[in-house]
């Protein structure tokens, strides 16, 4: 992989994805081999929105590489409250840290921020936009459980606001996959995303459904996301659809025995706890995979960046 920043899963080729996943499984098998690789280096964590899981897994990953983190803290206690622009914030943190992880509520924030800094910037979620590191750990989990080619995947729940879903769908177009999107009418994939999927693939691998029933038996993987009450104007409307997109052991009676069930977590009631004990459940494994995958990514981006810096000293460095 050779990128300065990781902003969207669209920038990742099949070869990029495979190199990260291969490296992540090497690290998972022997974490001690990279334990001191980034000693003395600092990762800047800029979370303008709370996300305990994503933040902690980045922190763990950097520490397991021998490095450390500097944390902006909560938005309430930072200069953001005083009206500092994101462009200024990242330029300041660039002077402290060797790489930056950014989570921000506005779409396009990571793209913009990356235009202001030279250190690698990783997008950890920009509003309803992208969440590419989540996608890589999702792909890692899918590959471990079902493989990435000749794959039939169902993606169910809130497909409209779910950035993890959009990122995953883009990345999967690099592989031989059939993607089935299952959601209530009001939470279908945004037309922008459908447009992109058709641009990336010829569109033949993409189908939209309102019900899981008809396609469940053909699925290798079922990726479930949360449908939030607050997305619905009134409670009755929510109640009318919510049940249809929750799964329990009974729902899965028609599923293949080797169906893998995934969820980016946290879940509320989308997946009944009784499924946790079945061989279908892969969501905790999925969460744990965040660490080796983010270790692999951080190592690749930091090492690439160091190589660039070394290479540039010969021709007078860069102008900023």
């Amino acid at each position, binding site marked *: 992989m050779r990128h300065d920043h990781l902003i969207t899963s669209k920038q990742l080729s099949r070869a990029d994805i495979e190199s990260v996943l291969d490296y992540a499984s090497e690290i998972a098998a022997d974490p001690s081999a990279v334990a001191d690789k980034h000693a003395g280096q600092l990762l800047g964590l800029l979370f303008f929105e709370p996300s305990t899981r994503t933040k902690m897994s980045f922190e763990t990953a950097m520490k397991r590489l021998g490095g450390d983190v500097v944390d902006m803290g909560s938005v309430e206690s930072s200069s953001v409250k005083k009206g500092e*622009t*994101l462009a200024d914030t990242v330029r300041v943190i660039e002077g402290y840290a060797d790489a930056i992880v950014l989570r921000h509520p*506005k*779409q396009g924030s990571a*793209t913009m921020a990356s*235009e202001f800094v030279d250190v690698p910037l990783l997008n950890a979620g920009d509003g309803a936009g992208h969440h590419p590191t989540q996608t890589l750990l999702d792909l890692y989990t899918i590959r471990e459980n079902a493989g990435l080619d000749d794959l039939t995947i169902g993606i169910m729940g809130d497909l409209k606001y779910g950035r993890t879903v959009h990122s995953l769908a883009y990345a999967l177009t690099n592989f031989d996959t059939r993607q089935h999107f299952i959601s209530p009418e009001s939470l279908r994939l945004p*037309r922008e995303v459908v*447009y992109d999927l058709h641009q990336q693939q010829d569109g033949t691998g993409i189908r939209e459904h309102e019900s899981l029933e008809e396609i469940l038996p053909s699925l290798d993987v079922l990726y479930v996301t949360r449908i939030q009450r607050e997305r619905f104007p009134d409670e009755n409307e929510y109640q009318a659809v919510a049940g249809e997109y929750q799964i329990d052991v009974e729902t899965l009676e028609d599923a293949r025995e080797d169906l893998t069930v995934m969820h980016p977590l946290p879940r509320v009631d989308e997946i009944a706890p009784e499924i946790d004990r079945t061989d279908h459940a892969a969501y905790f494994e999925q969460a744990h995979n965040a660490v080796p995958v983010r270790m692999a990514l951080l190592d690749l981006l930091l090492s690439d960046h160091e190589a660039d810096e070394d290479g540039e000293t010969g021709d007078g460095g860069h102008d900023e």
Partner: protein
Amino acid sequence: MSNDHDPHGNDDHELRVSKIRDGTVIDHVRGGQALNVLAILGIDGTRGEELSIGMNVPSDRLARKDIVKVEGRELSQDEVDVLSLIAPDATINIVRDYDVVEKHRVERPDVVEGVLSCPNASCITTGNEPVTSRFSVLEDGVRCSYCETIVREDIASLIDT
């Protein structure tokens, strides 16, 4: 290349708009878009620009077309490119000493910068960040390079004035 007679014989209608000596005639603008053309060019008449505008003039090629004549100003390629977003059929005639010396169709650029503002309130470019808007031009619309929102209709309403 130079051709100052409209082969479709619209001369009668053209007469409604006075001839210019030096400047640009933007012809075959879609009916009703003339004022948006001026907005894109940043022309509002306050700086004494001499303008003639014909709106909803009958045309063979477009059912109704607008014509904009700007005295004393030749459009840059950048301006012409941006015009293509709202006036894809426009022809640009550069006039010197009452003669059309150049005539060309607009071409759609790949990207327009600093011209349109993003309609998505959740887009980072709508805050107070020091960033210039950037849109890529699609076959049937434009797309924000930051938040990726696609706009197909009423692109003129996004013009930054």
